[in-house]
């Protein structure tokens, strides 16, 4: 499979000049930055406070998009893992790895913002009895486990296979996390989904959807860059292997010719 990587085209053979940016990604990055500024203004100044929660509700504009993007990222990892196991395609393997790293970041952000939102609203940072909270933490730990497995060896196909199995097992937990507040609706501290239940309106709804769009654009931007880094690493290792094989062949050839020369 051929993949266009900006760094290949722009490096001009000099690895110190290699980078993963392109005109499109720089444009996308600027859009994300502008979106983040607009999101901060909307979330902290324009959107109204909640009747019950007051200003604490503003955390919803970070927490909910982070949670949704966690699902998107880990589903991407699961899809990439399945495709690796089926097709043995490095493209999918690198996609799965890139999505897992970004997903772990979003999942950490979800847990962190949920925790600091919980203190003024629930009166606690954390509750071990709550299914939504604990299943989310388990999802986070499983995906950290995925990254630990990946860290055990660069391009080793066996490592990719082990990681793919972990990625697929972790994905089983995603619908459990998402549906837990419905399945245990009268047994959880965590409230049910607001976005799909139509419990948001006007500027609050707009800001949340806007935050989700900005988050998605950031996810795409980060995926492109992380994928390109992974692809370059993959190619560099392949080139190193080719060079090493070539060197061994040359040495063997040289040793063979000197041996035959000595016999003669």
């Amino acid at each position, binding site marked *: 499979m051929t993949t266009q990587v900006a760094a290949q085209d722009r490096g001009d053979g000099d690895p110190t000049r290699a980078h993963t940016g392109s005109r499109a990604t720089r444009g996308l990055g600027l859009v994300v930055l502008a979106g983040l500024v607009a999101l901060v203004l909307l979330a902290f100044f324009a959107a109204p406070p909640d*009747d019950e929660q007051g200003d604490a509700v503003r955390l919803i504009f970070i927490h909910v998009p982070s949670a949704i993007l966690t699902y998107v990222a880990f589903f991407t990892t699961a899809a990439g893992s399945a495709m690796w196991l089926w097709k043995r395609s490095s493209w999918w393997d690198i996609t799965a790895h890139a999505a897992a790293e970004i997903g772990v970041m979003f999942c950490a952000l979800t847990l962190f913002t949920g925790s600091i939102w919980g203190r003024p609203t*629930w009166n606690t940072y954390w509750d071990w009895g709550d299914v939504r909270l604990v299943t989310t933490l388990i999802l986070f730990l499983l995906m950290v486990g995925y990254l630990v497995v990946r860290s055990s060896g660069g391009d080793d196909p066996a490592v990719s296979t082990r990681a793919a199995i972990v990625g697929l*097992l972790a994905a089983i937990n995603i619908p459990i996390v998402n549906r837990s507040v419905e399945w245990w609706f009268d047994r959880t501290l965590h409230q049910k989904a607001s976005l799909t239940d139509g419990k948001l309106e006007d500027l609050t709804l707009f800001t949340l959807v806007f935050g989700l769009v900005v988050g998605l654009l950031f996810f795409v931007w980060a995926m492109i860059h992380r994928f390109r880094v992974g692809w370059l690493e993959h190619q560099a290792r392949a080139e190193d292997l080719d060079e090493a094989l070539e060197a061994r062949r040359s040495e063997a050839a040289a040793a063979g010719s000197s041996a035959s020369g000595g016999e003669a």
Partner: protein
Amino acid sequence: MTTESNLTPQDPRPTRQRRRVIPLVAAGALVAGVMLLIWNLVSGSLYFYNADEAVARRSELGAERFVLQGSPIGCSIVESALGSETVVAFSLSFGGRTVDVVHRGDPADLFQPDVPVVLDGNWVEGSPEVEGFAGMAGDGWYFASDRMRVKHDNDYRNDEDYEQRLQQSEAQAATGGCS
């Protein structure tokens, strides 16, 4: 390149050792994670008893600590003090049953009428001795709580009458208007 072979036994390469250990640690963590998940899903179904279930299981629960959930009844809320400690007494309801509660300590920031609370504590036989509190359960038991969480809902639509309703509820509580 030398043509002599070095047959001296070598120490195992640390990278290979590390590569064998990491999958084992990861596999152990994975098994632990899945077990924790299953435990959480099973125990999650018993995280708290709603007020009607707690009343039905009173004899079974005895003095055992458990978690109770229900909605505070606005007109029953009385804030008092026992020594230097703040005490909040109120009645809560769920599933058509009412439970009297005495909570020791400051109430949660969002504690208010009709917003469900999740409380840690145990059943106590007798009447709550909090000045000004007339429990609505009237069954000779109350729930002694020492930890309160607020279980707010998922509705973020602002209610134009919210402030008015809150003031009415507070005024009703101040006059002991539970009748």
